[in-house]
């Protein structure tokens, strides 16, 4: 099997499992009335598929195959629990007239009574069809750690009575935000490590994209949900241009814009317009609007920095975090010059001294002002503070030019 073919099979496998795992888990939970047992049985079917499909090919009806396998293995696994066995034995495919229950699944996985790392792992496993091994590999943690997190979380769901349902209206807003935070965290985790040097590593940014798109489909009237989907789509539209042939990170300014996915950018902008029409702006919509400004500029020099600065000011009005202020300072550099941006940055030192981006930005501004020795020192600080290999390479490159 040539490597390109291997990649295609792998990508197709990922797509099919993402498409079906969550839905099928949801329908198993309904049949069995037990989150944990349904999840176990489905995970087993996913692992079997990952073993057999690469050699045997993906079946014509992957969902039927998965459900049949889950049912057969489930009857085996749950043989001591007679009531589950009977329910499973009666389960037929396709389940008639079934609503999409994935939202309930997502809300249960992202329940705030679970620790955040468990929310992330459980969502990936249950909703996106990842195996525990794939999650461990993606986050570079031991498989036993992930397995333990998932076991504990599932036990808590059962024992503490975490409900499997869409939260009532008065809690919905807060709970949706929690779900969005998990998806966004997943995306950020995946985005920097995507591409480059780890072939066949699971593309977490892709899983985050899938989750965001599913949420936008399931909750089309919630503008922040649409905003996050647009934001992730816009970032991912630039993936092909973000790494050079050697796997090094290419900065936005230096990216070949012809390699951006302009169709995806247009789709994302349309999605963002749909969100804006609902007239409830929020941080994800604003961040997406900022990224859209970059994505729609034909060249770096055409970037509408004044508009970007306005959007950052609005964003600061909602979430006054040091990291947002840092990004605003970067925009300020292109509207009012490096001196003004550097002054702004100085006020952030106490909060962001341990943040590599703070020092990398400072280095760049100092270089713009011709203060090369200070720039060099700031680059060294930044390098010491990141453990992402692509970012390290970029910063190391800069140190050798200076």
């Amino acid at each position: 099997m040539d490597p390109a073919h291997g990649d295609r099979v792998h990508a197709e496998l990922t797509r099919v499992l993402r498409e079906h795992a969550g839905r099928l888990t949801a329908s198993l939970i309904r049949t069995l009335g037990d989150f944990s047992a349904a999840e176990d049985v489905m995970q087993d079917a996913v692992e079997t598929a990952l073993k057999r499909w690469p050699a045997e090919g993906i079946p014509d009806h992957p969902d039927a195959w998965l459900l049949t396998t889950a049912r057969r293995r489930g009857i085996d696994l749950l043989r001591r629990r007679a009531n589950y066995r009977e329910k499973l034995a009666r389960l037929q495919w396709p389940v008639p007239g079934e609503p999409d229950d994935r939202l309930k699944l997502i809300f249960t996985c992202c329940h705030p009574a679970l620790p955040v790392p468990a929310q992330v792992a459980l969502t990936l496993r249950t909703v996106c069809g990842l195996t525990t091994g794939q999650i461990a590999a993606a986050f570079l943690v031991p498989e036993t750690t992930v397995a333990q997190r998932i076991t504990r979380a599932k036990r808590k769901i059962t024992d503490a009575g975490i409900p499997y349902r869409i939260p009532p209206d008065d809690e919905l807003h807060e709970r949706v935000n929690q779900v969005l935070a998990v998806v966004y965290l997943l995306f950020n985790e995946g985005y920097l490590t995507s591409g480059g040097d780890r072939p066949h590593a699971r593309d977490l940014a892709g899983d985050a994209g899938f989750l965001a798109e599913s949420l936008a489909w399931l909750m089309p009237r919630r503008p922040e949900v649409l905003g996050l989907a647009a934001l992730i789509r816009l970032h991912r539209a630039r993936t092909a241009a973000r790494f050079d042939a050697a796997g090094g990170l290419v900065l936005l300014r230096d990216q070949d814009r012809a390699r951006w996915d302009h169709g995806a950018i247009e789709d994302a902008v349309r999605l963002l317009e749909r969100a804006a029409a609902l007239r409830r702006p929020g941080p994800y919509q604003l961040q997406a609007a900022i990224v859209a400004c970059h994505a729609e500029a034909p060249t770096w020099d055409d970037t509408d920095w004044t508009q970007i600065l306005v959007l950052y000011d609005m964003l600061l009005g909602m979430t006054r975090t040091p990291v947002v202020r840092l990004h605003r300072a970067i925009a300020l550099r292109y509207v009012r010059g490096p001196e003004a941006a550097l002054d702004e940055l100085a006020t952030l030192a106490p909060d962001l001294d341990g943040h590599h981006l703070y020092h990398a930005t400072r280095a760049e501004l100092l270089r713009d002002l011709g203060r090369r020795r200070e720039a060099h020192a700031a680059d060294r600080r930044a390098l010491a503070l990141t453990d992402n290999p692509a970012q390290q390479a970029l910063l190391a490159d800069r140190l050798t030019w200076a």
Partner: protein
Amino acid sequence: MKYVLMFVETEEYAKELAAMSDGERQAAYEQVAEWFSRHAAQITHHAHLQPAHTATTLRMDGTEPLLTDGPFVEGKEVVSGYAELEAADLDEALAVARTWPACPVVEIRPLD
């Protein structure tokens, strides 16, 4: 399901309470009484504990049973009372806990 809400007092809260005038303290107590009556249908049992200095802890994990003065965790946060609650699920128990008007920490735990 049955849950127990454990009410946890912090040092800061104890200070706030001590700094209140009699009238303010009375109002605070009335809020708590009002909370209990509002949730009376769900609350099956509740009790307030005597202050932490009255606690005695018996440890039996060493070679000899060890009796010590004070609560089992030496810390700034101590359980000051509890309420047993009947709720459909954790979210319902949390909704009740969220309206608790007194001490700032509540632990929610299901009963077997």
